[in-house]
């Protein structure tokens, strides 16, 4: 692993060097101005969500939120794998339940539109279930709920793993 670490560090260094060298100079407005001003000015009109931070997190940055949910799930599976050899007694069912629900909700929201010839994570597809004008906002809220369920599952597994009698061994 130590030899690999040098290779990975060099690779990261080269990538960062390339990326940082290609950036516009500091104080340049072109980096993020167009994104953040669009979020603030047109967020409510485009997404139908009154709260700007829900609109950004659940709609504009929905792929990021989905990635965070996947991250929570992978971390929870890592905790389960780490405890597989040492602690077989800690109760994992509640955590797994939250985690499964959150993952199913998040991935389901992403995959459901594909079944109907839509794009991945296209919340407009929820129009069959709710008011079409509110489909995007409902989708964003459901995605946030999925991420929170994943987080709850992760925390539940984490706490139960390390509070179990065999947790620290």
């Amino acid at each position, binding site marked *: *692993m*130590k030899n*690999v*670490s*040098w290779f*990975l*560090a060099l690779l*990261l*260094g080269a990538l*960062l*060097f390339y990326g*940082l*060298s290609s*950036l516009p100079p*500091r*104080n340049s*407005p072109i*980096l*993020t*101005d167009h*994104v*953040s*001003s669009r*979020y603030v000015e047109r967020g409510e009109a485009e997404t139908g969500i009154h709260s700007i931070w829900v609109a950004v997190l659940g709609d504009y940055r929905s792929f990021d939120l989905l990635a965070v949910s996947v991250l929570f799930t992978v971390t929870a599976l890592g905790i389960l794998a780490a405890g597989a*050899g*040492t602690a077989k007694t800690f109760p994992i069912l509640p955590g797994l339940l939250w985690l499964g629900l959150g993952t199913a909700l998040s991935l389901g929201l992403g995959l459901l539109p594909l079944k109907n010839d839509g794009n991945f994570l296209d919340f407009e597809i929820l129009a069959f279930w709710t008011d079409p004008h509110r489909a995007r906002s409902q989708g964003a809220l459901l995605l946030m709920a999925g991420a929170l369920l994943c987080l709850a599952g992760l925390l539940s597994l984490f706490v139960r793993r*390390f509070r179990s009698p065999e947790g*620290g*061994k």
Partner: protein
Amino acid sequence: MSLFQALILLLCVVGFHGVFFHSSLGRKVFSWVLLQAGLVTFLFSLAPGGPALPKVLAVLAAAVTLSVGLGLTLLCRKFWKQYKSLDENDILKRVPK
């Protein structure tokens, strides 16, 4: 590349390398914090006086780093109390199969 960007690159590379290189859990945690510090510095460098989004992301990343870093430090403390060592190989040998 400016001196500031060189600092970001250094923090990220040294931190990333340390996470894989060190066998001590404490050093791994410290390296990860260094990597995160590079990321936070990069986000702050994007918008020194303008748009708020990178600043919000930087504050978010700093808060996550602090909280996760604190949690990992507590875990290290627990391992230290139990095994009197933070070396992953030492701990692995003593963990009952």
